[in-house]
């Protein structure tokens, strides 16, 4: 069939398409476009749901529902109102809130927070030292040379503190700090002004610092910058 030979270059091009381009193809029935879109977008949606719920099962449910919604009604997305990523995050937030209403125990407790780490292929807590991301022994993180366990514990404490933030603060930390979005990207996802994102993130981080201070005796050592 001549069409088959002609399809291959198109498929290669599909990897270079924007989200909107892939969505257009998906609406036209292009299965590969949907696959590419899913592979491109689902990890961040899954992690967002995982961090927000602290539960891998809920994260799977939410991710599946987000893409089921996209399959069933792709024309709900209006490019004039934002990005496709923002649209998908919006669906995820709505599903999470529904789950919230169904199960008030969504706020991650210690066990739930650990569940996130257990699902990490690399295990939890070792990333800081592996990436040289250790503080100089004066903050919440201890130096890599002191005690790996303490480092892991610190990260676990931060993770737990994030999980116990109020929802609107937690999602901003998840988006801006864990998903490392810019303020503009987060504003698009949350459909709010950039200034709101910034002020909310600052407040969230202030709450985190308070929680961490409560959890650990403050080490009041002067900063030495190099």
């Amino acid at each position, binding site marked *: 069939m001549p069409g088959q030979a002609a399809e291959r270059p198109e498929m290669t091009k599909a990897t270079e398409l924007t989200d909107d381009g892939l969505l257009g193809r998906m609406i036209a029935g292009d299965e590969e476009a949907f696959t590419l879109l899913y592979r491109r977008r689902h990890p961040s949606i899954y992690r967002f749901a995982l961090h927000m719920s602290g539960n891998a099962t809920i994260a799977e449910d939410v991710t599946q529902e987000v893409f089921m919604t996209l399959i069933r009604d792709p024309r709900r997305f209006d490019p004039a109102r934002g990005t496709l990523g923002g649209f998908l995050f919006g669906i995820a937030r709505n599903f999470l809130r529904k789950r919230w209403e169904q199960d008030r125990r969504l706020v991650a407790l210690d066990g739930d927070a650990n569940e996130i*780490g257990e699902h990490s292929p690399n295990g*939890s807590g070792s990333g800081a030292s592996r990436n040289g991301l250790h503080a100089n022994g004066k903050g*919440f993180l201890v130096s890599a040379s002191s005690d790996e366990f303490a480092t892991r514990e610190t990260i676990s404490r931060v993770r737990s503190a994030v999980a116990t933030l109020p929802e609107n603060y937690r999602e901003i930390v998840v988006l801006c700090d864990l998903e490392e979005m*810019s303020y503009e990207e987060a504003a698009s996802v949350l459909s709010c002004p950039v200034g709101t994102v910034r002020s909310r993130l600052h407040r969230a981080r202030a709450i985190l610092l308070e929680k961490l201070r409560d959890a650990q005796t403050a080490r009041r050592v002067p900063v030495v910058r190099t």
Partner: protein
Amino acid sequence: MSEIEEMKSMSCAEFEEIVHDLDRPGTRGMALRERALAHAESCARCAQLLTETESLDQALHAIATTEGDQEAPAWMESALLREFRYAKVTAVSPNIGRHVAALGIAAAVLLAAGISLHRFAPGTKGNVPGQNMQANVSAPATAGESAQSASSAESASDFIALPYADDPDGSDGGTVVRVELSGPALASLGMPVSLAGSSGSISADLLVSDDGTPQAIRLVSQETAN
């Protein structure tokens, strides 16, 4: 010297305002980073806040790094692809419902015609064509001949398109078939309730398309010959 003094002129309030943005590209905090660091060197309280904030940044970044490759399980992609294929099939077949309904109507009409034929076939007791109004399924006539198909002793209404008809005016050809229909059968074809409620059978001409789907119906009343 004066430049250093100017740098140190940052207030603690201003420092607190930007401390969470010192490493965030495109923000005011990053633009004022050097001034903020200079201020922290001369202010123990802000130095402590800076250290804590850096520790928090590093912990969050460590979490983002270690958990950044988390994604939904592989089965989800397969499940969503199945859903996508199913949605595609149903989306490209909007006429299936129409065809099912048309086939249902055709079956009802053919059943009625078959019963009439069986009851009033030649040799059947009491079958005297022309005397009994129920015994009439005419020889098929083409759509073009339909206007002449009602005899001078009959009066017929205009053809009324049946629900889901593709070609109610017979422009693509078709055949006119005389049938006797009961009230409920008429109701199923969308005819008026008063007729549908009739206890006896009613003569009607059906315009049947080439594919056997009834397209239109007209009622025939036979006037008694004097």
